[in-house]
């Protein structure tokens, strides 16, 4: 038994960490947060060059051909620095949809471009407030043309290509949903960039009117495929959340060592010390759950759906917990725009909502444990 990454994998992670420490500074994140720039294009190009984007894409499609394990570790690093780039939408989602369900032609057309960072992909599912269930998908495709609205599409400001869940014709329920590739620069697409909780990654709402749509996978299996891809993406997002948790804890720890009150460092007050100890506990549990999920992802294990939901719930709780208490530890400074605490707080809460919110994943986890594809203990 070995529940750890290999030394080679850790060496690659380290390389990405060093690259990001230099290129994705707080100033770089703030440049995106405080401007209309959709994302940090130089950083994104750098990540493509370094092989981060193409890490888990086969060489035949322009990728590097590493495994999902490396991608998990890269995700952790991106989360640690709250990188203002659309990796999760373009790689964990769009590229994964193509890999899992794309035709050979679709893969050869799009994957090399996604891996090279030439274009940005995303996944458009949600149409309104509340938990997304099959009956809430109203967008529809007739004669290869998509009409409908998708809201809060992640990285929608930067995206060039979307995988869109829509009804084929008049199909009903989950079986009436199919997936389509839509060129967001093409005709019939209207994009409205949103003001969101986390402006380091800019979401958008899309209105489609007879936009050309290319069927991905078979008609009627959209809901099923989307579920599979979202499970996989949830694991990678959970690694981003673990990276973010660690960094928020580190910031709080450093501040607690430095800041003096009543003649002593605030870290010597138990109220602060114990709060940080609890952050450490959440972050550790989340990390361990993520390692289990990384194993399931890389081996395509039968437990993957349970492992994904476990990692997602645990990492969402952990990042929210660490980010909010990081602000608390910083006192008034924590509530200033100038300190980075709010950037982590924003990211933690935005990530908690993307791909299905915490309560959705909690419910999924229990359904899956009940389904019995993994031991309950």
């Amino acid at each position: 038994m070995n529940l750890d990454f290999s030394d080679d994998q850790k060496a690659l992670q380290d390389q990405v960490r060093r690259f990001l420490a230099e290129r994705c500074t707080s100033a770089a994140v703030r440049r995106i947060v405080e401007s209309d720039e959709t994302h940090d294009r130089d950083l994104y190009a750098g990540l493509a060059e370094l092989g981060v984007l193409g890490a888990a894409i086969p060489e035949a499609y322009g990728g590097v051909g590493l495994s999902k394990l490396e991608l998990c570790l890269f995700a952790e690093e991106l989360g640690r620095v709250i990188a203002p780039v659309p990796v999760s939408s373009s790689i964990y989602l769009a590229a994964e949809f193509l890999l899992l369900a794309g035709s050979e032609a679709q893969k050869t057309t799009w994957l090399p471009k996604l891996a090279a960072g030439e274009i940005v992909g995303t996944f458009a599912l949600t149409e309104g407030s509340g938990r997304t269930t099959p009956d809430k998908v109203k967008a529809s495709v007739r004669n290869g043309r998509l009409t409908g609205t998708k809201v809060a599409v992640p990285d929608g400001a930067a995206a060039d290509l979307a995988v869109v869940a829509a009804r084929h014709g008049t199909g009903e329920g989950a079986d009436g949903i199919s997936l389509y590739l839509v060129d967001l620069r093409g005709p019939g697409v209207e994009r409205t960039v949103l003001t969101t909780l986390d402006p380091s990654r800019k979401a958008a709402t899309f209105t489609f009117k007879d936009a050309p749509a290319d069927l991905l996978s078979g008609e009627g299996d959209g809901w099923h495929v989307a579920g599979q891809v979202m499970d996989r993406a949830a694991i990678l997002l959970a690694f981003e959340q673990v990276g973010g948790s660690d960094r928020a804890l580190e910031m709080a720890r450093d501040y607690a060592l430095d800041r003096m009150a009543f003649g002593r460092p605030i870290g010597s007050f138990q109220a602060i010390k114990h709060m940080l100890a609890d952050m450490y506990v959440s972050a550790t549990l989340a990390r361990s759950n993520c390692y289990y999920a990384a194993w399931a992802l890389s081996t395509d294990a039968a437990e993957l759906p349970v492992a994904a939901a476990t990692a997602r719930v645990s990492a969402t709780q952990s990042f929210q917990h660490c980010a909010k208490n990081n602000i608390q530890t910083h006192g008034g400074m924590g509530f200033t725009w100038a300190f980075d605490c709010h950037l982590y707080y924003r990211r933690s809460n935005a990530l908690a909502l993307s791909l299905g919110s915490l309560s959705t994943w909690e419910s999924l986890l229990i359904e899956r444990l009940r389904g019995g594809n993994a031991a309950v203990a």
Partner: protein
Amino acid sequence: MDFEDSPEEAAFRAQVRAWIRDNAPRHLEAELKTAGFADNGIRSTDPLAACRDWQRKKYEAGWACLHWPKEYGGGGYQPIQRVIFGQEEGIYASLSGPFGIGQGMCGPTLMAWAAEEHKQRYLPPLASGEEIWCQLFSEPASGSDLAGLRTRAEPAADGSGDWIINGQKIWTSGAHRSEFGLLITRTDPSVPKHKGLTMFFLDMRSPGVEVRPIKQANGQSEFNEVYFTDVRIPDSQRLGAVGQGWEVSLTTLMNERLSIGSGMSLGFPELFAFCMEAEIDGRPAVDDSAVRSRLATYAVRQSGLKYTGMRAITALSKGQTPGPENSIGKLVAGAAMQELAMFALDLQGAAGVEMGDDQPLQGRFQKMLMRSPATRIEGGSDEILRNIIGERVLGLPGDVRVDKTVAFRDIPTSGRQKA
């Protein structure tokens, strides 16, 4: 990354499995499944005798204290083999309960500090379950603040070199059935508290030792008061130098945290099974979204602990020593057990108030409710564990201390405050 056994591990597992299949006391299996807390469920025979039988059988086959060296009654196996044995032993592992403190804490302390002839004399019967040991550390005035203990050891007036012990220990688990005890005492009150301590081991049947059971909040009597009146201990039973007791105790406490924290179950599978059966408005409780949310939170804590344990085993198998980060096991498990029990009873409604074997899962949740407060206190309270994580893992400064450099006898205490 994998959960597979290496070929050697698989061979070892097969060997263990075959042996357990042929030797485990299978007639006790059904009763063991009804185990509660500090109660192994055995009614058909003397529970302690059942534990001793299984322990002796393991010992004779070389499966007791797997990671101890063979010459001291252990198996001489690798840490990972110990883990595999535990997995295969399954429910029968609960028969090891009475030996836990001795084998988990006293044994390693003897191994590190006792004279060679003592190791050869005492470790094998400790491994075989023939002799049970207890840990005589806590006192009425010193639990978390262990170094504040007052039980005195003074050189005997007859010049024999023996030590004379006077004082009182409390919360001593299993003292009533122990042959030996690990005893920490104060030999010098004129120096700062951590410097004047000395460790001994003693025969619990020595004249002047009196064990009085304490009735616990949950009605059981697992722990005791132990009084020492002019108890004589030969100097040869001293562990470490005079004044080195604190250092010796750290060996014990480090092992305590490991053995208590590792592999602790929160009872989640039982709760989950219960939520499949229990009903809310005529539908399984597990369909209710509030129930799901609570269950999910416990599920990820349980699996987080499980995989944290596996990461620790991975580190161990790479030759790294487990550190203070392992404190999280008991910290998470104790609080979770308590919450989980309250939640399970909430679902039982007014009927949940009844204690007894007729309740779902033989009243497990009621027993768990009543035992879990102790888990949050014994072997380092939640607060002490948070201090350890804060200070030793995260590197935060210690509390402001008023007692570190003063002579022990000058430290203000409840009955002796400074004017």
